[in-house]
């Protein structure tokens, strides 16, 4: 009840000073995160047998939630142009697998924690940041989702956990690798990693 009021008043406050669709990023992210949490907490999917179904369902949701092309472009940065079209496609696929594995593995360990949707900051005319907090017994973990407007939906292009941006972190790794390897060699490294996981 109180939470709903808070969200409503937040949206109310946001609508006035900013553009008409200001509340939508937060709603969008909230919708996706909540559907993921629903899958995680579904009692019908408990245990080892439910794990695969859980992962598949979460993958389907993350497909709608994230903009993997944008993610890939921003991660490689200036190196994006070193990849030809075919390599770019491969990269997007492989990068997506890696991220999904990492995200899903991490998130399946959270079940009973509370997720608070705090506020939304507009970063630029097309991008926005939704700040959330995961309240666990041991600590409060601030997680921000950076979203970009794509047509009439908002999609996530970066996740910032405790101040560490996913894109920046992977970018530094890929930059390091690409200083010594060709794009194809990088794709091979990624394939091996995905194959292992």
């Amino acid at each position, binding site marked *: 009840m109180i939470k709903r009021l808070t969200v409503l008043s937040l949206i109310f406050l946001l609508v006035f000073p900013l553009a008409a669709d200001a509340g939508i990023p937060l709603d969008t992210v909230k919708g996706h995160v909540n559907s993921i949490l629903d899958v995680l907490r579904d009692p019908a999917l408990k245990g080892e047998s439910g794990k695969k179904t859980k992962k598949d369902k979460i993958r389907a949701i993350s497909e709608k939630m994230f903009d993997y092309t944008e993610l890939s472009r921003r991660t490689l940065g200036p190196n994006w142009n070193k990849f030809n079209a075919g390599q770019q496609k491969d990269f997007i696929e492989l990068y997506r697998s890696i991220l999904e594995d990492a995200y899903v593995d991490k998130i399946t360990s959270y079940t009973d924690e509370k997720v608070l949707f705090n506020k939304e900051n507009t970063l630029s005319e097309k991008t926005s940041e939704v700040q959330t907090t995961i309240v666990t017994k041991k600590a409060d973990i601030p997680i921000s989702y950076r979203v970009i407007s794509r047509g009439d939906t908002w999609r996530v292009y970066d996740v910032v956990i405790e101040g560490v941006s996913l894109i920046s972190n992977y970018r*530094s790794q890929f930059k390091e690798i*690409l200083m010594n390897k060709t794009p194809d060699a990088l794709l091979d490294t990624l394939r091996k990693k995905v194959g292992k996981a």
Partner: protein
Amino acid sequence: MKQTGIYLLALIACMAILVPSLYADSSSPVSGPPVQVSTDIPETAQPPQPETTAAGETSGTEAETEFTEDEGNAITIADPIYPWNKAMYHFNDKLYFWVLKPVAKGYSSVMPEDIRIATRNFFSNLTTPVRFVGCLLQLRIKDAGNELVRFVYNSTAGVLGLADAAKADFNIVRRNEDVGQALGSYGIGHGFYIVWPFIGPSSLRDTVGWAGDYFLDPVSYVNPVEASLGIRTYDEVNETSLRIGDYEDLKEAAIDPYVSIRNAYIQYRQKKVDE
């Protein structure tokens, strides 16, 4: 007392020497290094060089910098002692998996989580002076006051700091400020990346900060030295027991864990300074 004074003087002298060099260093914007980076890439793009050992050798003499596309924040740190850092990273990695994790696992199997959280609160309460001074040095008077309030309230209502009562009752949260962050807020750059055995990732600035923190941490003044070390070790084991899984997840998600940790470290510190 006199000895402490001398150490403090030495610390200030170090800072006086380091500050000019640090100001000239890593916080310098995109002038020299992009030239470095852009000439590197075409060279190495054609002949596929063997593995990452090449990176280790080439960075032996010159500072290996990394730049990110400027999305508003360019997070960079020089890594001139890369071979040492990489070796220390491997050492810490093995230490974690062979020693720290098994011990922490054993410990957590006999100690319920609630007690371990209480222990963490207890140790955290003891290190209030570090956070207090860290806040003061950044002229965050209100936060410094909050730390004091937390200390008093948690030590009494929170029973010697075992419970974080200030957070539960008044939502006054802990501010993890330290001397290293204070230095950062003065505009002092990291200097360069250092990985210490046992302690983990740091930088030149933050290491100097730790030296400062050392004198503010009550545990440092416990005699004999073995007891002080023992207490710190216990704290470390306890803390690790609450975080088993985090390091493994990070490694699992990373393509190159060493670079990932280095980057995560400076992003994290940057955020703490910005806060």
